[in-house]
Every structure is written in structure tokens, then in C-alpha cells.
């Protein structure tokens, strides 16, 4: 884990790192005026994208930092890996779609848990998920 000013980076290479990432996300967000419900939503979304890194790419990184934009305060989470990538993002974002016989709710669920969600991937080049949530209903 690396901390540069108020930014946190958690390397994801084991399942303990998934727990560390979501706890760091909660801790950082707690200083930004999020409700306790929001903290749990953020931690849950981080848990899902961090697990995807672990399961599908083996390793990667979750970066969490505060954002200030147009008078709003929030948090941005960037989950990045250099794994196999996703060939059909539209499908991967559908509820219930999983290539490993799991629930297939991680990506679409994380999108619902956060206020903004962006996913980019190129086959063979990994996946980058960027998600934001705004504090105090400022979204």
C-alpha cells in the first residue's frame, strides 16, 4: 500500500489485498462527509472490482483519491490491471453475465452502488474501471 498525500494505492495480488482496498476506501471516504451507508456502498463496489482483478487478471492495482469538481466533493476509485481484458464490455455489464459461473453482478452492481462508472478494456491489454461517488447527495 502506498499513500501519497491523500491518495491511496493498493496493489491487488492476494485476497487479503481485496479487504485492504475496501477498508482503505472506507477510511479515506469517511473523512469526506459520506454517510455511513455510502461508506458501505463504496467499500462494496471496491470489493467487487478488486476481486475481478484478482480472479481474472491475477494482479493489478486499486487507486483511491478524493475529487473536487464543480463545488462537489467525492471519491474516485480507479481499478486497473493488465490481464486478458474483456472482449464484450456490453455483455460483461449485464446482470447475471459471468464467464466463471458466478453471480455476474460485480460490474453492473458496482455501477449501481456508485454515482459514475466507466469501464475501458482492450483484449490482451487489461481493464480499467473508474468509479466516482459524490458526498452529501451532491451527485
Amino acid at each position: 500500500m502506498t499513500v501519497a498525500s491523500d491518495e491511496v494505492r493498493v496493489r491487488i495480488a492476494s485476497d487479503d489485498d481485496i479487504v485492504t482496498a475496501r477498508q482503505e476506501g472506507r477510511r479515506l471516504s469517511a473523512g469526506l462527509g459520506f454517510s455511513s451507508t455510502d461508506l458501505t456502498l463504496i467499500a462494496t463496489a471496491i470489493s467487487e472490482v478488486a476481486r475481478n482483478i484478482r480472479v481474472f487478471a491475477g494482479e493489478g492495482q486499486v487507486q483511491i483519491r478524493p475529487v473536487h469538481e464543480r463545488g462537489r466533493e467525492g471519491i474516485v476509485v480507479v481499478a486497473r490491471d493488465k490481464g486478458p481484458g474483456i472482449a464484450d464490455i456490453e455483455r460483461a455489464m449485464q446482470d447475471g453475465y459471468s464467464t466463471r459461473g458466478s453471480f455476474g453482478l460485480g460490474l453492473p452492481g458496482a455501477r449501481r452502488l456508485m454515482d459514475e462508472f466507466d469501464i475501458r478494456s482492450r483484449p490482451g491489454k487489461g481493464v480499467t474501471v473508474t468509479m466516482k461517488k459524490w458526498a452529501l447527495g451532491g451527485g
Partner: protein
Amino acid sequence: MAVPILKQGDYLIASIQAALSDSDVLRLRDDLLDRAGSLRSKGIIVDVTALDVMDSFAARSLRGIAHMANLRGARTVMVGIQPEVAFAMVQLGLNLEGVHTALDLEEGLRFLDGLTKEPRDGRE
């Protein structure tokens, strides 16, 4: 972080104390099913009050415990799901289909007693 499992009469009570990693969740599953089998438990209570997050992996695993235990004659109740955690589960789209839930330990115990101790009406 291992989850302590206590035996109380015919039941097993697993009280999650802190955040669980995926391997902790799988260990809990294996430990519970082992002990429920060797002790011939009739009921299992999983107390998730202290769980920070119920994500799709935890939900899938806990549901798996309930289904497997049920096949071996033990009923599972999950108690103590916190309001924020419940809200996050709904947003994620998770359901605990087939898993009985109760507000707290007392209510969970009452539920299991109702299933395992009440006289049958003979028409089950």
C-alpha cells in the same frame, strides 16, 4: 481471521468478528460443514453483525453453506445483517434465496427451535 464456532445444544453458532477475506469465508464454510457433520447439528446460525461488506463472493459462499447444510439435515439462519449492508446487497442485486434471515441471535435461535423442537402435526 478465523471465525469462532460455538456449539450450543443441537446448534452451531458462528460469529464473524471482523472483515473476512475470501479464503476466510471458504474456511468458515469448510469448518462449519465439518463440525455440523461430526456433531450432527440440527441448526446453524451465522452471525454477520460485524461483517463490513457482503459482496457477491460472501453472499454466494454463505448461500452455499446454507444449501449444503440443508442437504445434511441442518437448517441455517443468518442473523445481524446491518441496514447499510442490506442496502448495499439490494443495490448489487444480491439475494440470499433459500437462506433464512433473522434480526439477531435470539430471534435466530427461536426460529431454529420452532423448526426442530415443536411437536409435529403429522402432516409435514
